[in-house]
């Protein structure tokens, strides 16, 4: 199909599509008048039943924790997929020249930011059950902290950290830990992913039982996963570029 023909078909079908979409939306509850029972029930229950103050995390890691297990493995599968697609059949070991372009201030600044971001990421990871945030958000923040090393052009240490086989093991550990938490419930005789740990007092960092454990494992998985992703993309550039095919 030529580009023009494509555009015509698109325009012709966009109008009925929009009509169909809006005809459906017309019968949705009006904007800002959420009616449904699901959210309200969970909202009123979760503080008492799960001792979490952030209901979204209670849903993500407990009520609908099984979804999040699937979601973690989507990330896991896609990290494996990226490594599979971008694999180098005959990898090189060299490292590109260290950049000298950045001033000491920038380097120092990014090192300081690295520490700050790391701490912030850990904070977000561990306080998911109390305040907005959680393993996922914290994990991405930790991963971006490691990107700072790259931006500071400290290629050797970036490569040493991110290309280490342990990073892959950590990623798999994060994913596996989630599944293990689920299986552990089977071992105490409860259904998969049951929150069987003591719940603690609401508002405490160590409250909410397995929610905290799962949040931590998700944080580990996400952080390691994103670091691996960025390394896989950068590998080519860092090692002085693969051969041209």
């Amino acid at each position: 199909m030529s580009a023009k023909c494509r555009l015509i078909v698109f325009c012709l079908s966009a109008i009925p599509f929009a009509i169909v979409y809006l005809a459906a939306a017309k019968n949705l509850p009006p904007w800002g008048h959420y009616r449904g029972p699901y959210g309200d029930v969970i909202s009123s229950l979760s503080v008492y039943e799960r001792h979490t103050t952030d209901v979204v995390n209670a849903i993500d890691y407990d009520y609908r924790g099984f979804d999040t297990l699937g979601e973690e493995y989507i990330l896991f599968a896609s990290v494996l997929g990226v490594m599979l697609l971008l694999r180098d059949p005959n990898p090189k070991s060299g490292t590109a020249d260290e950049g000298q372009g950045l001033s000491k201030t920038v380097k120092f600044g990014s090192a300081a930011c690295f520490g700050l971001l790391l701490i912030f990421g850990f904070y977000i990871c561990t306080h998911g059950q109390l305040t907005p945030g959680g393993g996922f958000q914290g994990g991405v923040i930790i991963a971006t902290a490691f990107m700072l090393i790259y931006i500071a052009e400290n290629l050797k240490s970036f490569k040493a950290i991110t290309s280490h086989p342990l990073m892959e093991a950590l990623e798999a550990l994060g994913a596996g830990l989630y599944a293990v938490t689920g299986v552990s419930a089977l071992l105490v005789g409860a259904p998969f992913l049951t929150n069987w740990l003591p719940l603690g007092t609401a508002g405490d960092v160590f409250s909410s039982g397995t929610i905290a454990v799962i949040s931590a494992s998700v944080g580990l998985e996400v952080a390691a996963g994103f670091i691996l992703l960025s390394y896989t993309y950068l590998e080519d550039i860092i090692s002085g570029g693969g051969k041209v095919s």
Partner: protein
Amino acid sequence: MAPSPALPIAAPLLCAAVLAALRKWLPRRAIDLLAILTALLNLVACAWLLRSSWRHSIVYWFGNWFPRGHMALGIGFLVDPAGAMLATLAAFLTLLALTYSWGRSDSGQNLFQPLMLVFLSAMSGFCMTADLFNLFVFFELMSTAAFALCGLKTQEPAPLQGSFNFAITNTVGAFFTLTGIAFLYGATGALNMAQIGLLLGSRHDSLVVVAALFIFSGFLIKAAIVPFHFWLPDAHSVAPTPVCVLFSGIMVELGLFAVVRVGTAIFGSTFAGLPDPMRLGFLVLGGLTAIWGGVMSFAEHHLKRVLAFSTISHSGMMLFAIGIGSPIAIAGWLIYVCAHSMIKSGLFFTAGILLHRLRTMSEPLLFAQGKELRFTAALWFLGGCGLAGLPPFASAVAEHMISHAGSGRFLAAATVLFLISGALTGGAVLRVFMRVFCGWGDKGPGDRASQIDELPEENEETQVIPVHFFAPAALCLAVGIALSFLPLLADLSLSASSRFLSQGGFIDAIYARTQSPGASPVLPGTGIGSMIGHGLAAIGLALILAVWAVFHRRLPRKMRWPSHLEGSMRWARQIQSGQPADYVVWTMAGVAVLGSFFLVLR
């Protein structure tokens, strides 16, 4: 005592994590062995679940969140015979695929096995979940693993394009599904399918109808129904053989499974007592797909694309069966899914052997190259007969059941469609058989797609074909035949399908009410005679088509019309343009047309 339904999900996921962690340290064989053992464990667990779900559907609430009143708080699994059967099938095929790739084929630095396990886990979860959003999550998990697996052979550009097209179209489909799910959530405020079904009742305003359309569109893209089918040949022609087996053998069927599951559990009473646009749409689309897939299958000259288009054709027939929608038709559908997946997997494994020995998948290049490979030839020939629906194969039984499920016009239409689809797809496979293994006729026309480079999947070259290459192909075809000798096959599938089709039964099971055994419909007469007659007619037509295609140059000019069918389908292949933009346009046009149709007919 049945195993926990969480086991078939958790075990492969755990094993995938272990394998991914240890992939650089463990030897190849150890990783293969672990993966095969896990698939075996899954097979046992699923078969066990299938057995114990026979009396009562097994309901399992994750995180111990039992519903409060009608409010389902957590995510529930519902294992009924139909779902458990598909999960068993998925585990069986994964086991065979992993066995096939044992030790030799390129495993992408051992990333292949963990991805296969994630794929397996997603398929098992997809078959058993009773939660709409969870269904979407498993849909995405399945897709993500599939996209990655499809692009395994990164040495050439073709696989990347194939998997890119696959990924774009299927992701667009996932967004349609998610939009539909969001609509339903807005309408009812629930995510459990039983609860949504209960709350919707027989409501059929535009919201419900459009939600149904969007959800089905996503699943029909997975099921490769015209006009959503474009990704499938591209993905199949580039994916490695074991992955092709999973795509054709189970993933496509799972799209249709989700259509039936969602269609009964949620929209079961939507059109109660009304003319049903959904069913009519399925019948029309199914028929179109069956014919189009068959014609394109006959027009292709790349072996894997021939098989891919025949999958589209059969997928269309399956949708047609769903459109008939009576318990007998769905019982036939269940048998058809098993039979088709066995036969098609057998054919793909055989194509893999050919690729291994002769290093190409192009029919003109393979011409007369396979004369020595007798066993392979026999397998290929048997597969062709199975596709056409020749009686010892279970596909014949299934076709008979589906066509006799309806009466009058349905009977005639289904019979004719099965004949066309069987003759065209079987004819294409037999044509390849005659050219490649017998060396009859001439090379035949080539086309661009038949020249997609394909590197062999193995690292080393040997002239001996190892046993683990033959075994899966032979086993698949043997099971495809053996199924039809299973005692009480029809009765078992009928009791599974009437449970599968009962919305009341689904809701009762979820809310742990006593399940009343529904009245089982009466089976149509066995009619072995008409079954054999139909099978012989199809294989006869297929043979005629194949012989004509192979020898048409020796015929007088006027009788050469099949060559037009075979060679001058250029305009049809133009539609299959290999550009994701085109595929998305077709998808969108399809959704727009269907949407208008649904809204008007509502």
